[in-house]
């Protein structure tokens, strides 16, 4: 049974080069070529490949965001191919099999393939290449600039600046904007660590709130408060959360 591979890169000549370099490997069959991360998700779900060649900077969603949106049961080996050398560490944190710099070197490509084939032939189930819970998917700046979600076959992009608050709901986090509410399978801690702490404040064990969205805060009981947001929602504020807010406004 040949190993299935998918090439995801927005530049056609770059895909062509990977295809050319893969030609000598008879045991590898290219089942799809994709020109952006979202196509990549769909192709991976459809073909269940063993190996994925992944660019980082792509239209719509980047390579890291794509990994985050993969189904947990789809866990191909990932070989990054990019002109940027500064994301190698992040890539390996995401269990990348290898990280190849453009322009691609035949020698380095062969090394990566040797590694990939050894791991695939040994029948070892590849280590899941999906994102660890605490990894930011933004590759440009320090904090998340947007959150990407899948809704069935559609992709939803929520820019950071439209988020009013986030609420922990069981295994999910509810992301609330003026227009909509969405669920994402993440921990609130993840967002606490990866959203700008100057903008989002943890006001309660289950709530992370955009400071600008708060209109007023009222005492609710002895040790709790209620924050009124500009969309009319009310959010519980704990004693510790109230202290956080006071510190912020001081």
């Amino acid at each position: 049974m040949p190993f299935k591979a998918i090439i995801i890169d927005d530049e056609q000549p770059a895909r062509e080069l990977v295809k050319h370099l893969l030609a000598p490997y008879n045991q590898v069959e290219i089942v799809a070529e994709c020109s952006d991360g979202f196509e990549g998700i769909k192709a991976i779900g459809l073909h269940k490949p063993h190996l994925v060649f992944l660019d980082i900077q792509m239209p719509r969603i980047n390579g890291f965001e794509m990994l985050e949106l993969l189904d947990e049961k789809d866990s191909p080996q990932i070989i990054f191919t990019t002109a940027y050398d500064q994301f190698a560490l992040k890539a390996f944190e995401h269990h990348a099999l290898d990280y190849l710099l453009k322009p691609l070197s035949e020698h380095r490509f062969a090394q990566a393939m040797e590694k990939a084939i050894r791991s695939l032939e040994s029948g070892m189930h590849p280590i899941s290449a999906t994102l660890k819970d605490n990894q930011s998917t933004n590759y440009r700046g320090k904090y998340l600039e947007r959150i990407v979600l899948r809704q069935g076959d559609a992709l939803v992009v929520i820019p950071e600046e439209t988020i009013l608050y986030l609420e922990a709901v069981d295994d999910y986090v509810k992301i609330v904007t003026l227009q909509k509410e969405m669920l994402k399978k993440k921990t609130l801690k993840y967002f606490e660590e990866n959203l700008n702490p100057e903008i989002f404040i943890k006001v309660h064990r289950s709530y992370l709130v955009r400071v600008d969205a708060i209109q007023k805060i009222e005492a609710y009981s002895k040790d709790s408060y209620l924050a009124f947001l500009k969309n009319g929602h009310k959010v519980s504020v704990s004693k510790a959360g109230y202290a956080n807010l006071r510190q912020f406004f001081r």
Partner: protein
Amino acid sequence: MKEFVANNKQLMLNYAGLWIVTSTGLFIALYFFLDFDRRLALTDALISSTLFFLFASALWFVVRFSGKAANHGYVHLPSAILAGSLVVLVWLYASKMLLSWVLPQQDVYIAFINDSLAFRAFVGIGLAAIAFLLFKVHFLLIKDAETRYRALHLEELVRKTELHALKNQLNPHFIYNSLNSISSLTHTNPAMAREMIIALSDFLRYALKQDAMQLTTLAKEIENVRLYLKVEMLRFGDRLQTSFDNISPQFANQEIPVMLLQPLVENAIKHGVQSSTAPVAIRLDIKDHGIETVLLSITNNYDSSYLRFKGEGVGLENIRNRLRLIYGNGRLLSISAADNTFTASIIIPKRDLQNAI
């Protein structure tokens, strides 16, 4: 370092002033209050005061060295007291010796000097303290001026160096990605690969060889942007559409700083083409803007559902700085984003390049 010298000159003037005041004070005390002979009073006042300020100048080094050694900028108190006492003791001894030598057969006066040693010591300690204070204040002023001067100078130097190195404007990832595309072409279309290598080389030659202040003609600048676009079109194919051909011949010799347009086009590619799956069109328009200026604008569409504009990047900032340096006005560049269209406009003085290169 002008400020440094000026500060030292100020210190010397102040020090001399202190010497004059002290000499006068001593003379007044000796002549008017103690009724000594005018010659005696004048000799004592001048010698005592002069010697004191000669010796006390050593305190400057105490202030300077302890100020440099300790970051907090305070004079180490025990060493200050020690140095001050030493200066006063040496001064008392030396002035007594010198006075007995220049005033022979003045036993009464020498006896007076011996009697007034304690008082003189007291005056010396007071003067030493004043000298210390003067040095300290000057030291702090100099240090402050030096720091400010260095910061200012460094800032300017960094800015100039950055601006003059046009190669810093080049995005290395553009080069790596282009070489990757060309590498791909060597298999599929070697003739095209050679053509692209020439286009990339010509573009790099233009971009790297020149100084940031260099001016060129609009025709040459656009020719260079076309070279750049030729390479980028290899990478992006149909996703990148351009119209750079509708340039009226009247602007061919228009003066323009080198590599002014390319960063704007690169910006359009980065935020337009690289962020969208749909084709993106980049357009250059050139037209008269009043009688004395020309308006260049580069527009591109972009996919607003995936991209937000969050302030300006380094590329635009760099262009602004160059416009400030060359034309004295950074606001000649303006940007706007509306209806999924991004526009960067530059206004430059309308004039033909005199000796076209």
